[in-house]
């Protein structure tokens, strides 16, 4: 049957291809436009008819096209009884709707667009029922949501239309996503995404622990699509769409997609208690609820919409029973409902079209004005009510028969009673459709004179009603189709059944009789009930939907306000807490192993130092607003750290640390000049508490981690041994730290001095641009003017710094030279010399000092970097890699023999760079000070300008002396 199978993708594609044309052909007139929409549908119907005999013989047609072969995903189509029934319904009613819409739509409506959307939708629906692959099915499924929302929103000028489209989109879209997840889980259980394969794996699926989640997710999708309780509310709101759309989407096709899927998955999902209780109960509730609401709706289409909800519930309930006979009844009712409900929607559309109102309260007596419409509507409504000799009766009988045998949670009467109640209200609203609209006196207040429409408009419902009667009188004509379809649903042998009008005096007949009598009675007291119903408080689904949306928004706003209020400290706190928690988690996860090292003995002096360290750190917390005090405390901390280095025999580190401390403290001190003495209080006590707790936890965590790590060994031997061994033989120095800096890791150092130089330049550039902008104006405004010390450049300090200067330089040279073998080196030497120079500037004033400074700082930095660089390049000439050092020994009398390593040239680079960087930073600070109004001293010993008047004479003399010099 491969050859017939190739029709399947063509059937699915036909409407999509056809969708291209109506939009274009509308130029050629409305009839041509409708024709172009009809032709592809008719072609598809013809192809389906060709396939039909084979399917009715029990064959399953298949077609496969590779898509993602590596994943085993193929474009698979198949056609069995169920697919045939639905494809027939979709295409058959589709062609009738196309005909009907041609006459229904007015000249102002863009018809081409309408047919395009309609065909898109039709194609998607056909795709659903023909797909053999889950993914393909899902694609078509969502396409129906998309195109249906285009159709529902078609009349954009109606606000309810917009509301309806939005709700339909939200509910079915979200339901669809849930279903996707469920279907994928199903595919995962089976290991294949082909429906035909999945349908053969009932046992595997029902045994899987994922059966329930998958079932729930799929059912959510189906219920949302088929407007089952509690998702039933969107369907009536979608009724703002043009009537042809309502007739097509909301009676025959889209809302049945959920039913289709339940029927499709029936063989693998049904039969479990979960399935029964979820599906049957939902169906039952929906059936009764929908019927009751429908009775009290005054809008014709709303009445029909809720009746549709009710009937869909009925079919859902039948599928939920899980017995083969119930499945037969479900299939039969699907056919019957499609015929009479589509006809009813179309008559409602005719009434609306002619009388210009759909409000039942304003209608009545149309029997005389529109006899043909009345006949059609009456037959269809009677069928809906389940009156004998019409097809609705047959399937309703079967439903009641099944319900009569169903036991729900141990109670044998609950389901039958409720089913009868549902049927009763169903009869009531069906009669109401006839009585209140068509019977009664002719009303005179119609906006226009209603009359029967053209043949074109009533042809489609008329044809459907013919079917209603035909099946009602001769049920056997539908039997082959029902049998094949039900066989496909059940996926196995069907028990004996026959479609006939008279089954004898069964319980179902009595229930039916009660329903008809009761329904008539309820309708007769409708005028009494209706006001009470309107007054009764009841949950309005739309309001609930809006409330849920609003709650979600409120919750979301609360969530984001709480998390993302823009406060950086909160961000950092969350960050820290998360890291601590993750660290704790990790700590509990791994193997620690016993500590392999003994803690060191704690001697008294280090313990005191340690206590001082902790005390100073805490002190910084307490006094953090007093900046000067904090700086001093920081200095103490730095000092203790360098002492600790000495204690652990690391003199190099200690030297470096202490000189870095001195330089940074001095520079910071100078910078503090421009800042308020006390920083403002910014956070509340609560926040400080929070920050304290978080910081404390973080600190303890890091300390604990460090402690634990110190007690253990690292995975590999430390690299120290290698350095100790090779320091002298490879680097020519006995001071390993220095050799590391200038030799082993010379490249790093080279990078670092460049960074240092760049940092100094950046400080300079920043201070220049600050001075040029608002910051400079602020400095110049004199707001900074605080009390100054009387002696800017005290005599004692000037003298001392000058005496110290040569000594410090000497010390610097000494430290530099011994650096390669003993503690010292270019970096420390640079700092020492820099400190000596900084002291000159501080003691004697900037201008005075700068006048005596020959080499500009930028140049110093550049020279340093270049010296280091050329040393490195020099190694190339010796055929060695960049920065390889060499050394030799020279004797310059009268000195002792000493070692000269190329590393020393490199060290000079470091030395120069450090000096240049520190001095440039100082220069930047001083230029800020000058901007802030500090006068420039010309002389080494200067006093505060405020005291100048007193000391004027002295000053003048000094200036004169300076000039002479």
């Amino acid at each position, binding site marked *: 049957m491969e050859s017939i199978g190739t029709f399947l993708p063509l059937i699915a594609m036909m409407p999509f291809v056809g969708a291209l044309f109506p939009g274009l052909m509308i130029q050629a007139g409305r009839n041509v436009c409708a024709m172009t929409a009809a032709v592809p549908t008719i072609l598809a119907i013809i192809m389906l008819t060709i396939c039909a005999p084979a399917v009715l013989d029990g064959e399953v047609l298949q077609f496969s096209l590779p898509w*993602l072969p*590596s*994943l085993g995903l193929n474009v698979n189509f198949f056609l069995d009884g169920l697919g045939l029934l639905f494809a027939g319904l979709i295409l058959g009613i589709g062609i009738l709707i196309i005909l009907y819409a041609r006459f229904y739509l007015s000249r102002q409506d863009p018809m081409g667009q309408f047919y395009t959307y309609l065909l898109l939708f039709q194609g998607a629906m056909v795709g659903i029922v023909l797909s053999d692959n889950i*993914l393909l099915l899902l694609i078509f499924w*969502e*396409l129906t*949501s998309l195109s249906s929302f285009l159709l529902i929103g078609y009349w*954009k000028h109606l606000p309810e239309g*917009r509301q309806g*489209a939005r709700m339909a*989109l*939200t509910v079915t*879209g*979200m339901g*669809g*996503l*849930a279903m*996707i*997840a469920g279907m*994928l889980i199903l595919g*995962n259980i089976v290991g294949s995404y082909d429906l035909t394969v999945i349908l053969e794996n009932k046992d595997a699926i029902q045994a899987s622990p*994922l059966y329930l989640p998958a079932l729930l997710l799929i059912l959510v999708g189906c219920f949302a699509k088929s407007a089952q309780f509690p998702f039933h509310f969107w369907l009536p709101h979608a009724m703002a769409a043009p009537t042809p759309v309502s007739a097509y989407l909301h009676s025959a096709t889209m809302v049945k997609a959920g039913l289709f899927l339940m029927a499709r998955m029936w063989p693998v999902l049904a039969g479990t208690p979960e399935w029964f209780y979820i599906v049957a109960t939902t169906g039952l509730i929906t059936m009764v609820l929908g019927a009751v609401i429908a009775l009290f709706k005054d809008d014709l289409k709303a009445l029909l919409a809720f009746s549709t909800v009710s009937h869909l519930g009925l079919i859902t309930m039948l599928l939920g029973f899980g017995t083969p006979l119930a499945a037969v009844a479900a299939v039969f009712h699907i056919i019957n409902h499609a015929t009479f409900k589509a006809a009813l929607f179309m008559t409602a559309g005719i009434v609306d079209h002619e009388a210009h109102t759909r409000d039942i309260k304003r209608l009545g007596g149309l029997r005389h004005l529109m006899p043909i419409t009345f006949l059609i509507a009456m037959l269809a409504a009677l069928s809906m009510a389940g009156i004998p000799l019409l097809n609705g009766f047959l399937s309703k009988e079967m439903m009641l028969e099944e319900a009569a045998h169903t036991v729900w949670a141990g109670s044998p009467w609950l389901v039958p009673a409720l089913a009868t109640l549902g049927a009763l209200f169903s009869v009531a609203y069906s009669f109401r459709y006839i009585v209140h609209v068509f019977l009664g006196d002719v009303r005179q207040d119609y906006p226009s004179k209603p009359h029967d429409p053209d043949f074109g408009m009533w042809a489609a419902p008329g044809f459907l009603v013919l079917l209603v009667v035909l099946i009602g009188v001769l049920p056997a004509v539908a039997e082959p189709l029902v049998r094949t379809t039900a066989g496909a649903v059940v996926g196995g042998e069907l028990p004996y059944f026959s479609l006939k009008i008279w089954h004898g005096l069964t319980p179902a007949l009595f229930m039916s009789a009660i329903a008809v009598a009761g329904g008539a009675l309820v309708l007769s007291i409708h005028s009494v009930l209706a006001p009470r119903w309107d007054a009764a408080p009841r949950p309005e689904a739309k309001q609930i939907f809006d409330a849920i*949306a609003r709650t*979600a*928004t*409120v*919750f*979301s*706003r609360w*969530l*984001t306000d709480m*998390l*993302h209020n*823009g406060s*950086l400290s*909160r*961000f*950092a706190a*969350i*960050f820290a807490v*998360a*890291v601590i928690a*993750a*660290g704790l*988690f*990790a*700590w509990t*996860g*791994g*193997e*620690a*192993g016993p500590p392999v090292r003994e803690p060191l003995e704690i001697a008294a002096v280090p313990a005191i130092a340690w206590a001082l360290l902790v005390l100073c750190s805490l002190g910084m917390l307490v006094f953090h607003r007093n900046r000067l005090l904090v700086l001093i405390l920081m200095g103490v901390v730095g000092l203790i750290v360098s002492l600790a280095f000495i204690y652990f025999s690391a003199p190099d580190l200690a030297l470096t640390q202490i000189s870095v401390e001195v330089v940074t403290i001095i520079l910071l001190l100078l910078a503090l000049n421009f800042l308020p003495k006390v920083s403002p209080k910014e956070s509340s006590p609560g926040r400080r508490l929070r920050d304290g707790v978080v910081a404390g936890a973080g600190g303890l965590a890091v300390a604990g981690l460090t402690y*634990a*790590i110190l007690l*253990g060994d*690292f*995975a*590999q031997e430390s690299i120290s041994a290698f350095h100790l061994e090779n320091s002298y033989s490879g680097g020519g120095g006995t001071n390993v730290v220095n050799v590391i800096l200038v030799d082993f890791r010379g490249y790093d150092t080279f990078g670092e001095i460049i960074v240092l130089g760049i940092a100094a330049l950046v400080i300079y550039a920043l201070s220049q641009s600050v001075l040029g902008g608002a910051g400079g104006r602020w400095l110049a405004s004199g707001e900074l003017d605080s009390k100054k010390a009387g002696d800017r450049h005290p005599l004692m300090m000037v003298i001392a710094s000058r005496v110290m200067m040569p000594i410090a330089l000497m010390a610097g040279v000494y430290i530099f030279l011994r650096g390669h073998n003993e503690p010292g080196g270019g970096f420390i030497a640079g700092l020492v010399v820099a400190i000596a120079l900084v002291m000159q500037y501080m003691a004697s004033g900037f201008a005075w000092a700068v006048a005596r400074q020959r080499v500009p700082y930028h140049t110093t930095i550049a020279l340093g970097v270049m010296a280091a660089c050329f040393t490195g390049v020099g190694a*190339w000439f010796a*055929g060695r890699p960049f920065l390889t050092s060499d050394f030799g020994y020279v004797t310059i009398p009268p000195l002792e023999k000493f070692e000269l390593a190329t590393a020393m040239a490199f060290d000079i680079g470091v030395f120069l760079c450090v000096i240049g960087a520190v001095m440039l930073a100082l220069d930047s600070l001083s230029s800020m000070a000058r901007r802030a109004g500090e006068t420039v001293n010309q002389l080494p010993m200067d006093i505060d300008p405020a005291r100048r008047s007193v000391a004027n004479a002295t000053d003048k003399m000094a200036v004169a002396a300076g000039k002479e010099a």
Partner: protein
Amino acid sequence: MTELPVMMPASPEIFLACAAMAMMMVGVFVKAENAYRVVSTLAIVALVFAGGLVLHVGGGRQEALFGFFVVDDFAVFMKVLILIGSVVALIMSEGYVQREKMDRFEFPILVTFATLGMLMMVSANDLLSLYIGLELQSLSLYVVASFQRDSIRSTESGLKYFVLGALSSGLLLYGCSLIYGFSGTTQFDTLALALTGDDTSKGLIVGIVFLIAALAFKVSAVPFHMWTPDVYEGAPTPVTAFFAVAPKIAAMALFLRTMLGPFGDLVADWGQIIWLVSVASMLLGAFAAIAQSNIKRLMAYSSIGHIGYALMGLAAGNEEGLKGVLIYLAIYLIMNVGVFACILSMKVQNRMVENITDLAGLGKSNPAMAVLLMVLMFSMAGIPPMAGFFGKFFVFMAALNAELYALAIIGAVSSVVGAFYYLRIIKIMYFDEPVEAFDKVETMGLRGVMIVSGLLTAVLFIYLPGITDPATAAAASLFGG
């Protein structure tokens, strides 16, 4: 002369570095009013050329620079995505940058440097080269985020990003040093050999966890995502467009290579953290986005959610999961670029607007853009047959096959919630009363990006192997090597 290390596999990076430095010179010496245009064009050409080099170097495992740098199919795949993201970001920013007076030539250069850092990250085969690449990227991004210096929002976002980014970098280094301390190496290959999964020491796991936290910050996964909404909203829109794509992909690449390479055998130890981060990201992305009114902020939450889905594949910790992530990222790139092209076109009378309500009535005033944006939103929500669905599909399948059922179901639920706000945008475009119509889409580039990405999103399902085949090869290269 000494022998030079193997460098050829790194030729795209070396080229980009030289090109960026050359562009700085060009920028300085070209006339000021032309500088931006010239440099921007040069940057695009350089990035495209670098892409050509990447393809020329090709897949197949090649090491360079003493094993610090590695090129394989995975690297090629990721680098191509990153380069596309950067080039498109530059193309899209043209109009905006000139109009908003931020047309300084440093902008394209910074983007180029950031891209260079990202390429380094993708190819890093050592904790040290990882850090260098990451910092080059981050430092460039900090500056770019605050590029609109006169805007308080922009500078604030840049500062926040910098402070938190520095924190995370510190954490990364701390983690790296712990890892080094307990394994004795920083090289990925040696690490992989050393860490076999039995008797892992605590210190090492803490190190890995810190590394994860820092990387989670870079991909903006919950709870390290805090910077994202502020930076997305505050940064100039073209910068946000850039942020949303290339750096995310690069950081994900880094994440994948680090976790699945050297620490692949320890998946039992870190898998749960990724699991948690993934769940939290998906949920927060879904729920927090509902209340947003600013579309850039919305996209921030959306990106957090998307990262959550991508991490789902990582949580699976196997080749299938990796493949899922790669496909996800490729599709994420396509979609996001399109959405940002639309956001960059939200301009009323020469003034940028950013509120979701400003989209009202777009279906009438600019039907073509509305259709494209609708396709993109459906895709973001993961509704078939749009590309976004397939991205989710592959990671979901990976999670299910790895028996991470709870993760998959939470993912499904949050994608349902997430659909709410994507659909809301469609509803606003099509059903709300029109407000002022947008100006015409500014540049050809912007229009082109919008159309190409919208079309690709819509029709990708016809030829999926175009993405899945390279992704499969890339995933195999990381596991096979």
